[in-house]
């Protein structure tokens, strides 16, 4: 088992930031850790796959975060994903990481 880490360090503009991951073949997303610079900043997190589906979208499932997000998940990954932060109440720096388990 290999652990692959995607580091996040993005500044929101107009309440949002986004970037693409590399292409996955045999991987599972296990954990999402994301923090805003201020403790009282509210924000949403969304992942979009190559068919415009949202495996995770906290703006829909009601799990918007304030200051910090720490989710344990079990989402299989295939292809390229867009990682995005939405509806941030402040345009500031976001840091964190996505922990991905890769099969050999």
């Amino acid at each position, binding site marked *: 088992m290999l652990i692959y880490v995607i580091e996040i360090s993005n500044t929101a503009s107009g309440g949002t930031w986004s970037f693409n991951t590399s292409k996955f073949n045999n991987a599972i997303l296990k954990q999402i850790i994301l923090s805003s610079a201020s403790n009282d900043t509210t924000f949403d997190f969304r992942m979009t796959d190559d068919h415009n589906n949202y495996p995770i979208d906290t703006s829909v499932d009601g799990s918007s975060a304030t200051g910090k997000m720490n989710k344990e998940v079990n989402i299989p990954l295939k292809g*390229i994903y*867009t990682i995005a932060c939405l509806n941030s109440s402040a345009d500031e720096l976001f840091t964190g990481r996505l922990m991905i388990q890769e099969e050999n």
Partner: protein
Amino acid sequence: MFNNKRISELEIKFNDKIVLLTNHINEINTKLLKLPNIDIEFNKLKNEIEKRLIEFHKEITDKYFETLEKILRVNSESSLITALAHQVNQKDLSNLRSVLLKPFLEEKWKNEEIQKGFDVDKKLTTLGQQLIKMRKNLYDEMLIKEREGEDINEIKGKVEILNYIIGDKL
């Protein structure tokens, strides 16, 4: 003989008048040169006033939205939690807060974009807001194309150029 004398008298009178007129014209020219360049001064004043008005408007709008946000947050958290106590769960409150805040946040982002556009206008003397919007659209398009396995070199180049013009990266 009489005519010659008359002509000479008239000539002298005429020359005197010409000299008078020339002096008068020279006087006027000197005065004109001394007048300050009023158009340039006026435009400078106009630009200064517009710049101050925009700064003042931005300051007032920022303070307004900051205060509104604080009021909403306090209102939604304290009054809803105490009034609905056990009937509403945390997820509903979180949704309600997002819904309440959203229109004000959207207005705030729109105004921030407009102000950002003004700053870009100063650098480029073109419609800065359109450039920023274009860059956001191109960036989103680039992410979609990359996800779907298409070639993004051309669109990536365009985004880089716009990043350079606007002065920051998305």
